[in-house]
């Protein structure tokens, strides 16, 4: 019975392609599915990521030559998918609060300390320069930027752990941030009420993406695919004359891209790739990055509170880590715990979206440091 024999040798159990790591990873995939579905942790990305994790650990050839997910992953490596996600993100983002209060850019910059703190720590832990940079960008809390930079720096093997850590911590923002925020602020600071933001005209909203693209890409040209697409999406939205493009970019196109990106990035977490010390280090570094970013945002917020004579609530500083819009909601929540009549959401949206630009700038600086353009 040759045929039966052959059949038996093809099963995942018998063909030797799976070791105990694969089984652990299958369990991890189940855990992530549980977190995504039951807990609502970034499900849009964690469901596809976890399923890619499941499939590659049962059937490794799905990521080898001519494997289904390897074709999708090629589009990650070429930076096409992260750029197109940013197109959709741009088409959904309201930069109005940032235009009304450009000081928010400072808080968006401060939160990037998380990235560079993690970078230093990663170097100390023994990662080489490019790996350290790719890992530390997790602290930016922008999934597409993390995947984009890991691709540009040639760190494809780290892409799985980085993406999983980035999206996991992004969903844990409501747990990670509040203790740090409370530790670093006084009750009085948390109660600071901010003036209502001025209304922003349509013309300003249209000029914003054009100006930001021009300025950022002039100074750090290698961010052009990422920042350019983010701002093009926003221009689609704000111009008001290409509603169909804004709708397509932020709906059909973006979700198609999410499916392709999620499954293929998830499939970079084969057992051997994921269950090692580096992943553990990445988990630690990611948490440090988030914590340091939160803290530095809040601390600069305190400084600005002082300098402005108490007009700025330091709690909006933590929103600078991005994780749009969750971090802004955390600022709102912690603020309203101190004083239920305190509405910080709109004010926190400014640093929140500034943090997206700040992380893209940080990614551009890393690319410049490593001579990639």
């Amino acid at each position, binding site marked *: 019975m040759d045929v039966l024999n052959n059949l038996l040798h093809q099963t995942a159990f018998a063909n030797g392609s799976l070791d105990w790591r694969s089984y652990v990873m299958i369990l991890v995939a189940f855990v992530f599915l549980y977190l995504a579905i039951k807990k609502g942790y970034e499900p849009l990305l964690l469901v596809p990521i976890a399923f890619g994790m499941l499939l590659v650990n049962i059937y490794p050839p799905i990521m080898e030559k001519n494997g289904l997910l390897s074709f999708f992953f090629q589009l990650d490596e070429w930076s096409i998918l992260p750029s197109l996600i940013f197109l959709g993100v741009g088409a959904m983002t309201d930069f109005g609060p*940032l*235009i009304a209060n*450009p*000081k*928010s*850019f*400072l808080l*968006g*910059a401060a939160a*990037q*300390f998380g990235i*560079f703190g993690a*970078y*230093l720590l990663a*170097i*100390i832990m023994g990662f*080489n*320069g*490019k790996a*350290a940079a790719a890992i530390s960008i997790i602290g930016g809390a922008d999934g597409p930027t993390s995947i984009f930079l890991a691709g*540009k720096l*040639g760190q494809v093997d780290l892409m799985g752990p980085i993406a999983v850590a980035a999206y996991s911590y992004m969903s844990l923002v409501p747990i990670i941030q509040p203790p740090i925020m409370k530790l670093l602020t006084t009750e009085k600071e948390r109660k600071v009420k901010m003036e209502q933001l*001025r209304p*922003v*005209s349509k*013309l*300003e909203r249209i*000029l*914003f993406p054009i*100006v*930001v693209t021009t*300025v*950022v890409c002039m*100074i*750090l040209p*290698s961010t052009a695919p990422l920042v350019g697409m983010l701002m093009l999406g926003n221009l689609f939205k704000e111009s008001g004359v290409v509603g169909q493009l804004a709708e397509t970019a932020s709906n059909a196109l973006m979700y198609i891209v999410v499916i392709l990106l999620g499954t293929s990035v998830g499939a970079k977490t084969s057992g051997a790739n994921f269950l090692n010390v580096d992943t553990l280090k990445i988990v630690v570094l990611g948490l440090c990055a988030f914590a340091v970013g939160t803290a530095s945002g809040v601390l600069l917020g305190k400084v600005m509170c002082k300098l402005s004579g108490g007009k700025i609530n330091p709690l909006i500083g933590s929103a600078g880590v991005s994780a749009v819009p969750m971090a802004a909601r955390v600022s709102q929540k912690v603020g309203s715990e101190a004083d239920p009549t305190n509405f910080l959401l709109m004010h926190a949206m400014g640093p929140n979206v*500034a943090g997206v*630009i*700040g992380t893209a*700038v*940080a990614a551009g*600086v*890393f690319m410049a*440091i*490593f*001579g*990639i*353009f």
Partner: protein
Amino acid sequence: MTNVANAPMTSDVTTIPQALVNTVVAMAVVFAVLIFIALVISLFKFIPMLMQKKSMEISNAAKAEREKNKKPEESVEAPAPVATQTDDSQIVAVIMAAVYAAMEEEGTPIPAEGLVIRSIKKR
């Protein structure tokens, strides 16, 4: 995209002092870029003022024009096309100027096609 020849740090290992320098420089750049954008964007608040001023001028001009053009059969449609035409020709002129500049740079004799602009202006 990776130009290895130009790459300043092709050696994969980064020492801790190097990393410290990188961190300081990088954070400085991040702040510099974001502060620069913030300054540019903070100029946006003057836009509403400018627009108001301009729109007042325009509405005055339009009023004058409307009075000038007061022939009963055209009164409804006239203002819009006029405005359109004016702006169009301004823009065409801008493009043309740029292209001309390019040509002069290259030392090409400018041909007689200047009529493009005129043919749009007329009507």
